[in-house]
């Protein structure tokens, strides 16, 4: 039972409606993009097996509705998350401005035991649109924000082209792993496996 629990890593994807959360999740898990995804109502998740250092994990990726009105549902879904992915659309300023709200809302509703060090990852999606010409949030600006929030790892992605999606989720999985509860990380024979588990994430993700 305990080992099964340790194998599951729960990841929550948050961000404004239409930034591409569902598309990112499907690109990562199913390696495909469709123009026909429907707006997410309620919540759903996909799972994917991932391997790190000879250990198999199940990544459980939760995709929730982006509209603020549905946030009161969040509490049921955020609970027990190991990592939170914040997504914005590089072509929509508001979706970037809202990242702060999403982050705070998550911390309130999920109330992780150590909010200061809870792992987030930020994705700037849809960089393919218009060859980058309609972009309104610069990489620099995004990175500055991430740095100000405790060096959150940052990735620029295109769910449509599949660009950087794999790399982003690898980082997400690693960060989720770091967040595994102490009592399970510090089992006698696993003490040093993750290098202490609470090291400061310096700049970005070294994956």
């Amino acid at each position, binding site marked *: 039972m305990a080992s099964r629990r340790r194998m599951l890593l729960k990841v929550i994807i948050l961000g404004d*409606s*239409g930034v591409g959360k569902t598309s990112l999740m499907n690109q990562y898990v199913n390696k495909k993009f469709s*123009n*026909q*995804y*429907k*707006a*997410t*109502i*309620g*919540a*759903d*998740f996909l799972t994917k097996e991932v391997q790190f250092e000879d250990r198999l994990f199940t990544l*459980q990726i939760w995709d929730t*509705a*982006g*509209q*603020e*009105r*549905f946030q*009161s*549902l969040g509490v*049921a*879904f955020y609970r027990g998350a190991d990592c939170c992915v914040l997504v914005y659309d590089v072509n*929509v300023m*508001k979706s970037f401005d809202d990242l702060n709200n999403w982050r705070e809302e998550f911390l309130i509703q999920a109330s992780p035991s150590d909010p200061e060090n809870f792992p987030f990852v930020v994705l700037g999606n849809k960089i393919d649109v218009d060859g980058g010409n309609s972009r309104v949030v610069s990489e620099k600006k995004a990175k500055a924000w991430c740095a100000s929030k405790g060096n959150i790892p940052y990735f620029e992605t295109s769910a449509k082209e599949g660009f950087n999606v794999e790399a982003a989720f690898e980082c997400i999985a690693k960060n989720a792993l770091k967040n595994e509860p102490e009592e399970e990380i510090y089992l006698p024979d696993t003490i040093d496996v993750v290098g202490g588990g609470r090291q400061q994430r310096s700049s970005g993700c070294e994956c």
Partner: protein
Amino acid sequence: MHETDQHDLSDDADYAASQGLRSNLQKEAAKRSGPSETSGAEVVYQKDNVTIHPTQYASERISGRLRLIKQGSSLFMTWIPYKSSHTSNDVGQGSNARLFEKERNLYTIRAVPLTDVRSIRRHTPTLGWQYLIVVLSSGLAFPPLYFYNGGVKEFLATLKQHVFLGRSADDSNVFLVNDLQDPLQRSLSSLELPRVVSVANGTSSISASSVPSIEDSDKINGDNHVGSLRLSEYSGKQRQKSHDPRDLSIQVPSLPANAPDKGPGDTEKDLTEAPVASDPLEKTQCRKEKHGQEAATRVGTFELVDCKEFDRLSLVWGKPRQPPLGFEEWATFLDGEGRIMDSKALRKRIFYGGVEHSLRKEVWKVLLGFHAYDSTYAEREYLKSIKKAEYETIKSQWQSISPAQAKKFTKFRERKALIDKDVVRTDRSISFYDGDDNPNVTLLRDILLTYSFYNFDLGYCQGMSDLLSPILFVMECESESFWCFVALMERLGPNFNRDQNGMHSQLFALSKLVELLDIPLHNYLKQADCLNYFFCFRWILIQFKRELEYGMTMRLWEVLWTHYLSEHFHLYLSVAILKRHRKKIMGEQMDFDTLLKFINELSGHLDLDSALRDAEALCICAGENGAACIPPGTPPSLPVENGFLNSQQDDDD
């Protein structure tokens, strides 16, 4: 947990007596190969004013006399509704009275052998009368029998003297009759939603034709000997059917609840396609078209009764779905000037069968309240033209916003962007909306944007495009679609309130209904910490739109819009679907995540017709207690004056 607790009856004198009696009966039955020669039948129990409630309307209740009749070693149950005088209230409504008479016949229980009864469930509401639900081995169930003059205890005690009566360990109010099957099956069946297929119950049909005198006997008050009955023809025959391998070929089980476990979703389909009967007992249902064979197989020596006869006699507990309302029949509901003469009759008709697609354009406008039931053709034409102009006026409000103005109108830009994003994600696989630059997608956008100005406080919220899509598909007219959508949002608007109160009150009501109608499932969900019912969120927010294919969504919606049995029929439907999958949910000990995934993946795999029948049965069964589970003002109840519109805060989307 599934074992029948037989010990809780062993200290019961009645029970002990019945044990001895039972083994005798079995021996006797085993010796018999043909119809019993025993003469005479003895009424061992009789109760007057045992009543069924076919609908929630008190005027439609049917009272009758319940009896247990012993014939040889066999016990039979009959319930015969009283005649004529009780329908006198309906004088003046010729067709209604006739309908009533017909239904009265439909509900009659004519000599059902107790060997065909699987379980009896006792309900003791805090208010109102005690009632019993009798479930047959075939999965059919009779409507709840309300004991207006008491007598439930006596009834059960009498039963105990004559048949084996066990008690379900899961629910002490469920009495298992002749319960000799495997313990898992029996406790499930006892709890299961009475599964009613359109099969006429062979038993009641046959007895009706072979023992016509039983109804007449009703007039012979106080005569406990009904010698003319030939009830004994049943002895030793019941239940053989399910063990007859020949049956398997004609049994098309429609009930996933009993199916061997499969992955979510594929259960119903697989079963329909491949009726592999792992447990013949659970496969005793068959499709309508198989009635004749079913009956022939079942009773062997009896004549084959034609399908029409079966239909007439079928149980109406969860009535068979009817064909959709067509033009000709629709015309009969209208007077010379186009007024709907009997709106209740119309709603009832649509509740049971829906509407033919080509007629929806007319009927939906009435069901949704865009047109009043008593409006004339002329009035409707007139309203249509006024409303078209009115729509254009509202639409021009946002159309007149120049790009320069839009720059300074963030809320407008954001709202428009959200709608733009959603309409291109709405039903694009339907040809009506597919392809690039589809004008219908633009219409969706325009109507939604106009609505967000018409009801600026509520604005636009995700899910609305799902609700509008079928309406535009049916109306094919921008302004009429808009007004029908407005009417629908009068009912469902609170689903999209910022504080989500509409959703929360429905989910709350759903949990209460499950508690009322399926305590074990409720208890399971409680201990699994699933009582928030968020896994049903999508069902309720957009009325199963994502769970059903397009045509079925339209069918369901028109049924819901009749508000015929309940304004909140969608909640009973939710209960019905959950109940259908309760075995899997509880058996696999699903936690919140697994349950959510399971429910999401039921999408596209729901059998709407049987779910509707289940829901109907549940709704009737729950009666006033069900209604009491639903807080006043719960959507889609029309809001009280000055209701939700004012409760909106400033837009934040």
